[in-house]
């Protein structure tokens, strides 16, 4: 029930260790670090060009904590959310090599380098648990293999791209190359590994991958704190409905400027709305 306990526990468990390994392996020698993170990976202050130190809580709502409101949630919700925070599921679906590649993929699809290392949200564990349990979203495209196979195939395809760039594995690529690899999936034209990508629609896989990563990250209370989302709201609901007014326990916005690390490609966005796969991975709204 105590917020602080949950944080310290989960900070250990969310450190799957693989994240740290992956970053070290992708670097030659001793890189300069701030707050335990290599400078190259950190977002910058656009005015000074200086790297911004990792934060306990990035985002524009400093001091906002949804977990601090947990006694206002009903028991069932509290149990589900606290389990998510305190007990990330173990990796059982991916083998060690697959997990290493996937961890780096997740780190690029949803980078968390601006988060203090002990405040990172486990993403791979959540994806692994979904695949291990066979949970799907209620459908499969006729041009796609079942989700677990799709992930295995994609890992092979990503490794093939890495090898075409002269590395033995994806985790050895530098940041720019890693982002280039993933961007080619986003674009629907993988750079290499045709024998794997021929077996499925690369962009559909990309949309599933980003969805899964976003689904894990934005399900976490620390992510809610980051974006200023109020979190669970039962039995207590909301009273300040208009004009974006904060509830008494919410915080007002304090913005700061930041830009993505220079080596990253993921801050420039290209809409996929006009692609054939666009409507393919959509949550319910009505």
């Amino acid at each position, binding site marked *: 029930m105590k917020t602080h306990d949950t944080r310290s526990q989960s900070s250990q468990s969310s450190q799957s260790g693989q994240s740290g390994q992956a970053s070290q392996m992708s670097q030659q020698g001793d890189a300069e670090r701030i707050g335990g993170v290599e400078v190259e990976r950190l977002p910058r202050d656009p005015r000074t060009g200086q790297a911004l130190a990792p934060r306990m809580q990035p985002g524009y709502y400093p001091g906002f904590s949804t977990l601090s409101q947990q006694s206002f949630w009903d028991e069932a919700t509290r149990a589900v959310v606290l389990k998510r925070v305190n007990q990330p599921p173990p990796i059982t679906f991916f083998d060690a090599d697959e997990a290493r590649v996937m961890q780096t993929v997740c780190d690029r699809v949803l980078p968390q380098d601006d988060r203090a290392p002990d405040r990172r949200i486990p993403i791979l564990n959540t994806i692994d648990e979904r695949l291990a349990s066979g949970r799907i979203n209620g459908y499969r495209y006729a041009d796609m293999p079942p989700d677990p196979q799709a992930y295995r195939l994609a890992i092979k395809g990503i490794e093939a791209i890495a090898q075409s760039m002269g590395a033995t594995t994806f985790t050895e690529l530098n940041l720019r190359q890693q982002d280039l690899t993933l961007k080619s999936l986003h674009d629907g034209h993988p750079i290499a590994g045709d024998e794997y990508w021929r077996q499925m629609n690369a962009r559909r896989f990309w949309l599933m991958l980003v969805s899964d990563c*976003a689904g894990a990250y934005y399900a976490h209370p620390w992510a809610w704190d*980051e974006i200023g989302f109020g979190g669970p709201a039962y039995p207590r609901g909301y009273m300040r409905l208009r004009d974006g007014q904060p509830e008494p326990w919410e915080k007002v916005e304090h913005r700061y400027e930041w830009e993505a690390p220079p080596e990253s490609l993921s801050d420039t966005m290209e809409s996929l709305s006009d692609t054939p796969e666009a409507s393919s991975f959509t949550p319910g709204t009505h």
Partner: protein
Amino acid sequence: MKEPLFGAFDGAKPDEHYVGPIQRIDAPMRHYPRGEAVDFVVVGVGSAGGVLIQRLAKAGFSVVGLEAGPFWDTERDWVSDEAGSHGLYWNDLRIIGGSDPLALGANNSGKGVGGGSVHWAGFTPRLHPSDFRVRSDDGVAVDWPISYDDLKPYYELMEREIPVAGPTYYPWGDPHGYSYAPHPLGGVSQTLVRGCTRLGIPVVAGGPVAINSGSHGSRPHCIYRGFCIQGCKVGAKQSTLVSHVPDAIRHGAELRDKCMVARINLGKDGRVTGVTYYDEHGQEQEQRASVVIVSGYAIETPRLLLNSACPGFEQGLANSSGTLGKYLMAQIGNVVFGRFDDLVRMYKAPPANALTEEFYETDPRNDFVRGYAIQTVGPLPISFAQHMMVAQGAWGWGLRRTMMDYNHWSALGVLGEILPWEDNTVTLADVRDGFGLPVARVTFNLHENDHKIAQAGVQKTEEIMRAAGATEVTQEPRYAHLVGGARMGADASDSVVNSFGRTWDIPNLYVCDGSILPTQGSANPGLTIQALAARTADYLISERENAAAPTAATRIPVRYSLSPSEVAGRGMPRLKSRRPTTFGAGALGPGSRG
């Protein structure tokens, strides 16, 4: 306050079955002996099934409802959490294909008592009179075998039973008012109202939506928390689980959950004898019944009938017309996002809160027929991230950046009519589920008129978003809702059922759910599905009471006395209509009265 008085809130109580914070299932469930035939077996206890079992039980018949999913205890099973609500949807495998594959699961299908009504946002507009005459007026699709006036008393009845909160004057289609008051505006609906007002487009605020704006018996007033499509723990948003099922059980309906119906059995006399299903332990069981009603929705209903193929019905039960599984429809559901300099906080207040149907009808100035509505939506963070993944192509740092601005974004949904096309189908795939039953394959293709409606709808919605003050606008294509697949018609040669849901081929086999809609308009189908269910129930009761006569009847008395007990004596007098109540299609001219 740091804590609620007396400490943190608890949840379910072990010996009580709660559907909402204070509503309990207060009567012991009746159990009909296995092996004994009952009057009615209803396959699927969702929007239609819930209404059917309540009415049939209250009229004194023996009724068994079979539901593939669980009988929810909302305090125990539902959570106020986006990711944790995954279990509300029909997540079993289906194969999707065609030029424009339809996303299913969370997008449009529910599993468990209450069905899709558990996770609908709750918009409850009626169809327009013109929707029943699309062939006559616009030369496309088909006409309904009934007119708006046949359904109107059931719209009015269900609006009281749900109850629907909405404006005192609703200007479109057949103008009318609502007996429950509209809801206050939230950030998103402020956007729509502001944008429309600046452009001079009529817009209604605060409904019509199936969310209590006032307590309704033991269902409380809405608390504006925005988790409508995650299952309303408050019980303020209607699902048949909270509005009709408790009353059904009170009147002796038996509800068997986690029971997957495998096939419908046909007797030698050409009548169905009952259903075979797998119970919660996976054991095969049979339930005999005088009448079988299939209410499995647009995919599972055709699938069950196709899986029930037998000698005499090799192409699927009740499919002599060959139309079973065809003419499946979804609606254009593009979402337009706008970023505002001021905060919006779109997670507050019901996502379904304001709408305009100003562009609903065929307009000769357009290069397409039929039209679209524009409605508020309010995606929570995970959904919003997934929308932005497409709309902006966001990933990596870009996704993080956009999400940090979550509270600056507003979202409006286009709801456009897709016409029924023969090549949009539900068939059987060569993949089987855990019970060894072939799963459904859903093929979907957009046609020219559909594309044009989507384009026009997006353009208009973007205009509204900009007028409201958005500095950045983007959109994502998607679909909403599902209907068709076992459509009703006036002719046995091109439809599966008649207007009461009776299959043309088998006199004691009925279909009653969204799959019987021949066209869909640009209105969310939930209210229409429930109204059709109440009408079918009235027909079945009339038929049983007067075994000889009413089979050919098209008009049957509306049984107001069958409403759940808490409905009487609530709500306000309301504006009914300026439209004369005339029976028979095509009596009045087309056109919006807005």
